[in-house]
Structure formats: structure tokens, C-alpha cells
């Protein structure tokens, strides 16, 4: 395995772990969405690096799947953000711990 592949595989692992950490310790739902998007980005990075992106001819199948994945991610994020605005409108808070629960 080339050094480039090693670097990006480790980066994918690190960013995924950071995303999980962010998801667990975020207080706002918007931050959780950011963390989930980080996890998604790390997964894409892993797929492409394992698909031979670093060395040899690139594999077009994982590239096409990740391209699809990027569009699905923005769709899901947009829907989640619409839900978030509705939540704020309906309850007056978009935090995970409403102030009166503390």
C-alpha cells in the first residue's frame, strides 16, 4: 500500500472518530448534523482510497457511488434542516437540552 493511501486511510479513520465524538457531545442539533456530515465525508474518503484512488488507475464505480452519496447527503441534510426549523418554530428551542430541563 502506498504512503498516500496510508495517509488518507488514517485521515478517514480520524475524521470519522471526530465525527462520532462531535455527535455524542454536541448540545445543539445543528452541530450534530455537522458531525454526521463529517462522518459521511470520512466514509467517502475511505471508499475512494480503498478503490485505488491513491495508486493505479482509479476505479470509477466507487467514484460514481460517492458522487451519488454527496447528493444524497445534501438532500438528507436539507430535509433535516427543514425539520430543525420546524422544531424551533414549534417548541422555541433547537437545543438538545432545553433550558428548563436543567
Amino acid at each position, binding site marked *: 500500500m502506498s504512503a498516500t493511501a496510508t495517509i488518507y486511510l488514517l485521515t478517514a479513520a480520524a475524521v470519522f472518530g471526530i465525527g462520532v465524538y462531535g455527535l455524542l457531545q454536541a448540545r445543539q442539533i445543528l452541530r450534530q448534523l455537522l458531525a454526521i456530515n463529517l462522518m459521511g465525508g470520512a466514509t467517502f474518503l475511505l471508499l475512494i482510497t480503498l478503490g485505488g484512488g491513491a495508486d493505479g488507475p482509479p476505479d470509477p464505480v466507487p467514484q460514481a457511488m460517492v458522487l451519488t452519496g454527496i447528493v444524497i447527503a445534501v438532500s438528507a441534510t436539507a430535509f433535516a434542516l427543514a425539520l430543525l426549523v420546524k422544531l*424551533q418554530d414549534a417548541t422555541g428551542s433547537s437545543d438538545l437540552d432545553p433550558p428548563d430541563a436543567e
Partner: protein
Amino acid sequence: MIALAMDAIIAIGLVWLALRTVRGANVFSAIIMFIVFGLIMSLAWARLHAPDLALAEAAIGAGITGALLLVTWRRLQVLEGSVPQVGAETRSLWLTLPTGLAAALLIAGLGWVALSLPAEPATAGELAWQRLPEMGVSNPVTGVLLGFRAYDTLLEMGVLLAAWLGAQVVASEHRPGALPGPAHEEVPLVGALLSLVVPISLLVAVYLLQAGGSAPGGAFQGGAVLAAGGVLLCLTGRLEAADQASLIERVVLILGLAVFSGVGLVMLPLGEPMLAMPGVWAIYLIETALLLSIALTLVLLFAAAPGLRRRL
């Protein structure tokens, strides 16, 4: 050697920006860090021989997602009104420490597994390369998207449409989330800027569409660039939310799905499988329809509106 140093810088940048995203002082700076993360990610795609992904990440991952996040952040602020935000931005140390430790263990485990994975022969990719000449396009990613895995792309359009429909369903009746008008007086330079940037975004979108057959590009990248022009028109108050979608908007929203499904069914009576492409013209026809649908759907998602109209 220089290439390796470049990879190391990109990798360190990605990890640092991811950390800043989850540990940012406030939500706004977290969003900004996430947008920069997307931009650096597109550099990583370029290094990994995936220029199509680099374009998509820059236009969709960083651009449109960033615009959506920022406008939602603003809407949440407007809805919150004068109510001050109560509570700390991050959790206390006795929660952070074990979570951080567990995440570090996860990173170590994932890294170990990823490095010890055996290299798999890329059978599907090799088949795609071999049979690419049959498709009539020379960009393998476009070939896979519209030829070999056309189902994925068709259903992806369904997901995009479903996301917009879902956003419409949950939107409140009095639409508190509607775009606020431009806060400032009309600045003369805004018009000049728009008359320059919006035609260029149209030009780039059409170029990306046309180039997608043989070079990096395609309907998704082009659609996102066109949507960026639309977002700009919304932000500067040239377009405003309408109460409902006009007939043209409704047609354009489903155009991608409809044309794709229609062309996919044409070859069925001739004994070909569903979604078999009758020729290169069909690929470009579908890509054009996809581009229009993607661009309008993304702009409408940004505006959180069923339709748009010119501000008079």
C-alpha cells in the same frame, strides 16, 4: 516527495478542521469550519484522482450545503428572537473526557482495520473500463452514473425530490422561515455583480454539462453551480418566495425523474433491459433534464419555499 508533503498537509488540515467543527466556540464558527473542511476535502479528491468528486464536493458539499447551513442558522436566530441562548455551548469535562477517550479508541481501531484490509481486485471497475466504449462517453464516472449503475442515479433524483417534498410538508403554514429580504439599501454594485456572476454561473453549468461526457463534470456539478447563481439571486432579493410552485417550476422539478424514466422505458419493447441507453444523445438529454431539476430543487430547498417569483 512534494506530493507526499501535500498529502500530509491536506490530511492534517482535514483532521484539524474536523476538530474545529465539533469543538468550535459557537455554531456559526463550526459551520464555517465545516465549509472549509469541504473545500480541503475537494483537494483530497483531486489528489486521489477523482476530479469529478473534487468538483462535486466544492460545489455541493461545501457550497450548497454551506449555504443551507448558514441560512438555517440565520432562520433559527430569527425564530429565537430576543430570547437569549441559555446554557453552555459544549458539555462539561466529566462528559467530554470519556467521550473523547472512546472516540480516540474508535479512531485507533478504525485506522488499524483500514490499514490491514486486503487489497481487493476492482472487478466492477475493470468491467466498467472495458465496456466504456459501448457507452459513447469517455468519462468513466459519467458512464457508470448513467449506464452501468443508472438505477442509483435515478433513485438519487427521487431522494432529492423527496427531500424537497418533505421540507415542504414540515414547513409551517405561516412560513416563519421564509427568507428575510436584503437588510441593506440597494447598492449599485450589487446589480453589476449579479449581471456578471449569474451569466457566468449559467455558462459554467452548461460547460460542465457538455464536458461531462469526456472530462470531469456532469449534471450534478453543473446543477450545483447553476443553483449557486439562483441562491445569489435569492440572497440579493431579486427572487423571493412564492406561495406555491408555478406550473413551470412543477414541470422542471420532476423533469429529471420523468425524462430519465421515460428514456429508460423506451428500449423495453425492443427487448433491451430497462434503463438501457439508446445512444449518446439520450445521455446528454437525461443529463440536461437532471441539471435543470437539481438546480431548481437546490434553490427551492435553500429558499425553503414551494416556488419563487421575481421581486417587483
